[in-house]
């Protein structure tokens, strides 16, 4: 069962990475315009210089 000593912390670390990614995206304003994001993805010419 010694394998748990490093497997469990790795699992936790993965979870924390996910949490950090969510916090980053929230801070980045990615949830400010949810409906807009859904329709912008369909636009072809969104690569303005």
């Amino acid at each position, binding site marked *: 069962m010694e394998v*748990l000593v490093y497997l469990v912390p790795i*699992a936790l670390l993965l*979870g924390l990475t*996910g949490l950090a990614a969510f916090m980053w995206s929230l801070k980045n304003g990615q949830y400010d*315009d949810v409906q*807009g994001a859904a329709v*912008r993805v*369909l*636009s072809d*010419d969104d690569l303005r210089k």
Partner: protein
Amino acid sequence: MPETLDLSIYVKRQDDGTAHLDLAVEGIDCAACIDEIEGGLCRLPGVVDARLNYTHHRLAVEWRERDLSPAAVVEELQRLGYRAHPFQSRLVEEEETRRAKWLLKCLAVAGFASMNIMLLAVSVWSGNVTDITPETRDFFHWLAALIALPAVAYAGQPFFQSAMGALRNRRTNMDVPIVIGILLALGMSVVETVNSAEHTYFDSVVMLLFFLLCGRYLDQAMRRKTRSVASNLASFRAEVAHRIEESGEVVLLPTAALKAGDRVLVRPGERIAVDGAVLSGSSEVDESLVTGETAHRAVKDGDQVYAGSMNYNGTLTVHVTAAGKGTLLDEVERLLENAAAAKSRYVQFADRVAKVYAPIVHTAAALTAIAWIASGSTVHDALITAISVLIITCPCALALAVPVVQVVASGALFRSGVFLNAGDAFERLAKVDTIVFDKTGTLTLPTMSVVNAGSVAPDLLKAASRLALSSHHPLAAAVAQLAGSRRPFEGVTEEPGQGVCAVVDGVEMRLGSPAFCRSEELAREMAAMDPTASVIAFSWGEERAVLMVRQALRPDAVAVLSALRGRGFDCRILSGDRPEAVAPIAATLGVEMWRGGCRPADKIEALEALKAEGRKVLMVGDGLNDAPALAAAHVSLSPISAADLTQAQADAVFLGDRLQPVQDTIEISRRAHHLMRQNLGIALVYNLIAVPLAFFGHVTPLVAALAMSGSSTLVTLNALRARGRAPAPAGEPASAQIDLVAQGA
């Protein structure tokens, strides 16, 4: 070339020489609008960035200040086919956005913690019935404690703060038993971990937090959505005024930029945007939005005028006074204060339940401890059992029962075009048995329309309406609504105070006062038939027509009132207008109890009398004179066209020209209230089963986890029924947009 509006008070200047402006945009209905607006604006020289928020219909534009004026941005949008209004985000809304973000962070932390702790907890549960070693179990418990303690300290903040706030005011709310339960369960689990015991409750605690935060966040998100649409509408309505500068120059400004002491020019056909005193000029004003009176009032030098009045025939110069200085406003504000003070603070349903619930639960836990000690077990075992009673009764389902229904029901209201100002309005709306309507602007439309269009020859009507396009007079505006094409005749001249005339194909056409059109006799005849309507005459060569203009009933008023009466509501009318004007409306609608000529104090008196009879009154009104009555009534509604002060007092505001939302509001509220009670019933049954189990010490962490998630899911699913059937598609802004998005995509 129209006058340009001076928007400088809305522009935010930044250090790097760029300026920033927030706009609320009308007419966004499909995905292509995004490209069209952003692309169009970015082609303007000097624009650095334009970003449209499609969810909230707001546009943020940044440009280099020396290259462009803010008015050019608005004009470019106008050219693209969108009307944009400068938008100043209100403090409340910014506060709500911050709170929603914070709740989402708490939710993420609780979600992370509950997933990981559940992982550990399930291993322990399955290990306990197989061959887990005590060392491994302790290791898992310590890990769970390590995750749970900081997670609860962070994600529990919304509950800790709310409970502390309530206790500081010597009240209790639902959060007090929640916090007590959470802290005790956490403390006990830590002690048990130290003692390397078999059971800990870390998973229950964080799961409870996660469920509760879901409810809180949804509630907040719904409220935010409603508020953002409401403040967009407010900025669409934001009025402009012509200010006379020191130099005598006239500039067009948003009303928000005016200060007391400024002088404002009001032309015929314009709405007076400020409260003030007339400096010079004389005219007639229509104060129906203010007092409900439809007859016009003559004003001259020194008279008081109120924001929202329509100026009819003369140009006025108005001296702006600070709000609340007028005699009428003084009375309204005084009555408002009294009404707010007299209205005993309504205690929310959930808080009333919490008041009874908390002592019962805490007594039950204490009794459990005493019973176990009395039957000879150790203090440690007795305490553990007592705390498990607290954990299992922690009002998870109870705390979700009311807010989730509120969220779903306010979503349903939103789709029928009703915005809720007060979250607890459902409970009050559901109890309503008497509905009191104001007349002007509530039962009738706020704008004028021609009532005898059917009896006038079609070609005459067509010519009259086209000629009316050239006039600024409010009566002519009603005629102009009938015009098929928006092309006015050429060479039209306007005689101030008389009417407009034009020569078309060698024949003279006139629209205006009966004398101006030489048709006094016909006008007298018509006026005798309907003395309360205003008349406007039209002549075309030798032909004459007289049009009757008045505020028409809302198109579905008769149907809605008879439906409401059919469902047993007592409908009444209390109007500030003359009794002669109210009588025909009441007769058409079949309302027997009506009163005209009510001053604001009279309306309150009438409502108090109804209250004394034990009735629960819904007041529907729009005028400034209705504001105190709206505050005094058990619950209140107002149309979106209402005066600002009045809207602020109403518990909900409805959109559109129809009266149907009033009926929808009551029906949805009744359904919501029924579901709230049903949900509380479910929570009660759950507790009746769970408490005896806990009392006898049968609640293991596994049972607690199953029971809590089970009851929460049941309550949430039941709340979804508050959506009801999909409402009729007419007049529903939100879902219409969604349909269009789907088509556009």
